[in-house]
Structure formats: structure tokens, C-alpha cells
């Protein structure tokens, strides 16, 4: 709104030369910074589909050349990658569904004044935002609960998120109470009210919670590092990390997959550790790049809601 007014007034004001120069500088700065933010991803993508010998010579900087898809075929032939991709997708889907469901339900339940000890239990959950036991006690706890080397360690600790519950609760409080009262008069129980009336109205806030949680799950790396030693349970992020850091083991993995006759292609398409790394990076980043522009408004909204709550 502020902008509209300013635009309306602007023509009346003379722009000085200084302001003009400042404008040019401003635009240049933003173009350069945006370029720095985006170019690395572009670089990864064009190199993952370009001729591998040119790519390793550092010749591919602006446009892809000798486009081929062998890298992607080879990468999915690598031992562990499809498993890791499956794990990452599974934790993202299951984790997001459970977090969204729990946040919706708890956010609603904590508005039900009839609930026994409502305020106490609400605070009981919210206060967990402000302390944490630390990495080692967490690890020992997970070990005692038999959650190390267990897929559910990705999902279970993420279900009850105080922050999401606050967001949903605030949202539910903005829905007119009369709706629930009317339904209850017709004999609807609390759960029916939740399922039939409140839940359908929550979708904007749940979209925000869901998108944040999905990105968090997809990006999560630390939990694999701490709780997992079984390579069958590695997430894509962790696998990518091991690929970057263990060039030698990667090279042998590449050789192994080549030896089994997965790719008997020309030299140009033979995989190098670098090409594998870049290809895996692209696979890891693509979902985010696809999702982000479409859901940007949800991200922004989520942040603003968070800011209101401090």
C-alpha cells in the first residue's frame, strides 16, 4: 500500500542525478547477488547433463554441451542411491503427514476449554521449545528407546512441534466459536466438529505447516549422522555428503557399477566422481527448486506468522 501511494506521488518529485545513480547501483547489486544465488545450481545442472570429459576439464560454464542422460542412469544404478531416495521420500511424506495431522489435532484440542487441565498441558508442550537436552542425552535416549538404526527416529520426534501447534491454535481461535456451538447443538461430538468443520477450514495454515515440515524432512541430515550406522537407512542428504567426502570409495562404486555392464558408453559419458557428485546434488536439490517458487507465498506467510508470535 505504501508503494502505491509513493508511485502516485513520484512523478511530481524530480529525481536528482544522485538518485538516478543510486538506482542504477541498486539494480546492479541485486542482479549480481541474485546471480550468485542461482548460478551454482545452474552450474550443477548443466554439468550433470554435459559431456563428462568437457565437464571435468571445466569447459562447461554457461551452456550445456554434448547433452546426455547417462549420468542419471548410472547414478540410479549405484548401490544405495535408490534406497536412500526411497528413505528420503518416505520420511518426507510420512513425517509431513503425521506432523500436519498432529499439529492440526493438538492446535484444535487446545482450544477446547472443557479439556481437563487444558492450559497446563498446553504450556507443558510449548515450553519444550525453549530448552533442549543436548546431542548426547538425545542419542542415549534414542538408543534406550531402540530408535537408533530405526526408520521411525526420522519421524517420531518430529510429530509434536510446539511452534506448529501455536500457529494452528492461534488460527483456530480466529474461527468464530458459533460454528462449533451450532454443530454441537446438533449433537456433533468434539471429534466430529474437528473432522467435519474445523479441519476443512484450517487448510491455509496446514499448507504452511506442511510445506515447512516437508522441506525440513527432506533437508535433514544431522539425524542420519547421529542415529544411523546402517547404510540401508541413509537419507539422500547423508549419501550426498559421503559422496563428496569419500572420493575414493565413490570412484570404486562407479567402477563397480560400470563393471557390471550398466554403462559401456563412450568416454564422453563415462562417469567420474565429479559427475556423480554433481548429478546426485541435482537430484537432491531439484525437488526444492520445483516446489519453492510455487509455494513461496506459504513460506513467506509461515515466517510472518512466526514473527507475530515472536
Amino acid at each position, binding site marked *: 500500500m505504501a508503494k502505491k501511494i509513493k508511485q502516485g506521488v513520484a512523478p511530481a518529485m524530480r529525481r536528482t542525478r544522485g538518485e538516478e545513480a543510486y538506482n542504477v547501483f541498486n539494480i546492479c547489486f541485486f542482479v549480481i547477488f541474485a546471480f550468485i544465488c542461482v548460478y551454482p545450481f545452474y552450474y550443477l545442472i548443466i554439468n550433470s547433463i554435459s559431456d563428462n570429459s568437457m565437464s571435468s576439464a571445466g569447459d562447461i560454464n554457461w551452456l550445456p554441451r554434448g547433452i546426455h542422460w547417462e549420468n542419471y542412469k548410472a547414478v540410479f544404478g549405484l548401490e544405495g542411491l535408490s534406497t536412500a531416495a526411497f528413505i528420503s521420500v518416505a520420511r518426507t511424506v510420512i513425517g509431513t503427514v503425521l506432523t500436519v495431522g498432529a499439529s492440526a489435532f493438538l492446535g484444535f484440542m487446545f482450544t477446547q476449554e*472443557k479439556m481437563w487441565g487444558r492450559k497446563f498441558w498446553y504450556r507443558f508442550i510449548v515450553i519444550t521449545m525453549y530448552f533442549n537436552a*543436548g546431542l*548426547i542425552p538425545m542419542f542415549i535416549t534414542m538408543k534406550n528407546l531402540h530408535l537408533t538404526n530405526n526408520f521411525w527416529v526420522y519421524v517420531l520426534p518430529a510429530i509434536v512441534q510446539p511452534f506448529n501447534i501455536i500457529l494452528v491454535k492461534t488460527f483456530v481461535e480466529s474461527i468464530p466459536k458459533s460454528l462449533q456451538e451450532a454443530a454441537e447443538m446438533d449433537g456433533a461430538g468434539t471429534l466430529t466438529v474437528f473432522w467435519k468443520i474445523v479441519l476443512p477450514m484450517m487448510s491455509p495454515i496446514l499448507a504452511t505447516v506442511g510445506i515447512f515440515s516437508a522441506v525440513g524432512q527432506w533437508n535433514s541430515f544431522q539425524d542420519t549422522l547421529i542415529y544411523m550406522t546402517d547404510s540401508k537407512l541413509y537419507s539422500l542428504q547423508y549419501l550426498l555428503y559421503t559422496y563428496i567426502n569419500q572420493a575414493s570409495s565413490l570412484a570404486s562404486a562407479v567402477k563397480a557399477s560400470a563393471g557390471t555392464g550398466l554403462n559401456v558408453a563412450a568416454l564422453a559419458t563415462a562417469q567420474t566422481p565429479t559427475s556423480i557428485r554433481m548429478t546426485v546434488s541435482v537430484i537432491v536439490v531439484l525437488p526444492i527448486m520445483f516446489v519453492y517458487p510455487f509455494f513461496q507465498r506459504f513460506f513467506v506467510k509461515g515466517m510472518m506468522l512466526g514473527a507475530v508470535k515472536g
Partner: protein
Amino acid sequence: MQSQEESGSVTAVASPSAEALDAKNKRRMQRKAEKAAQQVESNKKHGFKLWLLVVPFLILSVLFSYFPLFGWVYAFFDYQPPIPLSESEFVGLQWFKMLVQNPAQLKTIGQVLINTFAMSGLNILTSFFPLVFAIALNEIRSKWFKNLIQTLTTLPNFISWVLVYAVAFAMFSSTGMINSLLENMHLISEPIKFLDSDSHTWLKMLLWGIWKGLGWGSIMYLAGIAGIDPELYEAAQVDGANRLQQIWNVTIPQLLPTYFVLLMLSISNFLNNGMDQYYVFQNAFNMQHIQVLDLYVYNIGMGNSSLSLATAISMLKSLVSVGLLILVNWLSKRTRGVSIV
């Protein structure tokens, strides 16, 4: 039945049978109220049932937030993983004493603290960057350009630190894009070691943080600017303020409260740098300057399996953090009359 009832009450004013319906509703409500009065007992039961529905989630919260706190007892034992705690030796405050008395330990933890303070300090010193970024972006008139820049610059915020490292590797490793480019232009003969060296480690970490977070950090301020009352700008223009003066006298004062809250939060998180960023970027060369507290706890706990010492350190860290949060909250209440948590 339900929808009928609803539409009935909504269109009550217009419908001819509104009064009849209204009366019916009233009677019904009265009956309900009487019933309710008679059944306080059953209401209590109902409230308890509602609570039972929440219990599974309370259990999760206890398991993953409260229960781990008992792990702090490990800080007072000499715990060696295969041996259970019950058979471990109780050592009292030995680990805490060791932190301040053992010279070698003191030196290490000192360096770790310096790193932590340096990284957090640099982050706080640059915490006004997003504010400037937002103000500058807002000065651009073209809406599509603004939106485009906003989308492109916030993207890095949504990738993991592992991917940031993958990007760093592709760009800055000895065979990376920058080195290849410089070599092909014959500007250098030896690849520059951007990643595996210990020069300017703090600064590099700061720059990666800015690359990842600047665009996203500015969004809050952009929204703040959009919410500023246009009359303030009009008044400033009437007074003959130019653009710079408008920014200085209107925009910045309006954004300061937001900045202040964020600053306070970052102060309360002074010791919590997180470990992802430093873990992925650490290597044998930059170890000395990259180890922040969170990473150090991981390295000695999971790497050297000194679980007890690591627990002692993270316990102290948690306590100091809670203390800082309370202090900052008190400060905020004192100076601005608003609590931040």
C-alpha cells in the same frame, strides 16, 4: 439435518419463519443448559476424555523433550558406552573440574569458545544486512523485478547445508569451477585452496551464512515496510524530505522494533550455532578455527566417545542458553515493555 440447521440460523433475518426458528433454538438451548447443569459430573468426564485423546502426543513430548533431560546424569558418571550406567563409576563434578583445570583441555575449550563467540559475534554484527537489503530492494519501482529478486535470493535458504557444501565443492574445490576458470585464463598455475585451508575460516563461514540467509532474512523487513502507514511518507514528503531522508526518518524507525526482537533472539542463541554448517565444512586443515561448541560436543561425544564430558559441556551450554533467553526477555520487557517469548 446439520446443514439445514446452519442455513436456518444464517438466513434467519430474511426467512419468514425466522422467529419461530429462533424461538425453537432458544428453547432447545435452554433445555441443553438445564441438562448441562444437571450433568456437571458428566462434563468433567467429557473433559477427561478430551484429555485422553491428547495423551499419546503428551507421551511423545515427554519421551523426546523431557525424558532426555535425565541424560544429564551421565555428566556425573564415567560412562563408557558398552558398560551400563548402573555399573559406571560416579565421579561427581570431575568433568566440570577438568574443563577448567586441565591445561590441555582448557586450551581446546578456550579455542572452541573463541570460535563460537567469533561466529556468533560476526553474525550479530552483520545482522542489519537483511534490513538494508530490504530497504534497498523496496526502492526499486518495478514490481516484477522485485518479486524475481526475492524468489531467486531466498532459494538458497531452502537447501540443506550438505547441498551448500556440494555447491561449495563444485565451485571452489581444487578442480572446481573457479579454479578451472582461473587456470584456463592462465591467471594461476596452482589451484587456490578455498576449502581445505585455514585462512579466513570465520569470514568464509560468515559469507556462506550470508549467501544462504540474506534474501530470506529480508522478507520479514519487506513485509514490515509494506505495513508502514503511507501517511507517514506523505507527511515526510510534505515536509520536503527526499528519498534518503524518508528512509532515515520513516522506514528505519518503523522497522527497528522488528530488528530489535530478532537481535535479542540471536543474542539468546549466542552459544547455539548449530553444527550442520560447521560439520560439513570441517576438515583436517580448518579444524582449529571451525570447531564451535555444537560441533565440538559432537566431535568429542560421537567421535572420541567421551560421552560424559560431551554431556557435561552440552548441559552447561543448555543452562547458559536458557539463562540468556531469560535475561534477554527481561531486557526486552525493561526497555520496550514487550516480552519476546
